[in-house]
């Protein structure tokens, strides 16, 4: 992630620059956010790592040759 940009608070509750009602310093919420992060990676990482369908790659490569 580029430096200088606001980093999403993936494992530390809400963004510190967020409005007051969005600040979540409680430990239980931070724990939930960490658990959520792990859970979402568990669910989606496998999808991202699956092979790209040949049909789709062929489509791109054929366009590249034009």
């Amino acid at each position, binding site marked *: *992630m*580029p430096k200088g*940009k*606001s*980093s*999403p608070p*993936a494992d530390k509750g*809400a*963004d510190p620059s*967020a409005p007051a009602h*969005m600040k*979540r310093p409680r*430990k*239980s*919420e*931070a*724990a*939930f*956010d*960490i*658990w*959520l*992060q792990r*859970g*979402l*990676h*568990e*669910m*989606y*990482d*496998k*999808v*991202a*790592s*699956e092979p*790209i*369908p040949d*049909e*789709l*790659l062929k*489509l*791109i*490569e054929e*366009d*590249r040759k034009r």
Partner: protein
Amino acid sequence: MTAVATTQTFHDQIIGILPKLRIQALALTRNRAAAEDLVQDAVCNALSAQQSFIPGTNFPAWMHRILRNRFISNLRKRRDTTDIEDVPSSVFATEAPHEDRLALKELANAMTRLPADQREALVMVVVHGMSYEALAESTGCAVGTAKSRVFRARRQLESWLLGETKESAKAARGAAALLARRLSDSERDADHV
């Protein structure tokens, strides 16, 4: 825009971003087959519109916006005929330890209940590690809106998973409580170092 991206061809950049497009598509559609179709449609749109992409600008944001616009367009066309609510359990099949499976299943179910824009925002930030600025650019909204979507998604999931009295939600509560204890232990250990 990274140095790597500027040295890649347009087509290389498309191939490189396909894994992230698949995740975004699954987050939006909640259906594996629909997600694959959406990615293919988005790629076709991008190839057709490649002359409109300005080299040196934010390619990932351009591509994510195309996919998102295509999703919205498809949704309008198919609203009356297609059920995108159905998520096969195999979509979220994992190899997690037995004690975590129930909580993950509950999380997967809760994710399907979130509004599409919140689910997309949460996944792009948490799974892709995208900044709020990049999320805003990729979804065509203000940075504040992007932050709000992620915040609401997190708190809604927390409310559903930790606030409900369903038996299956106990697993999520247990997992979060265990993690909280581990965090406390880690902090205490760190204080003693």
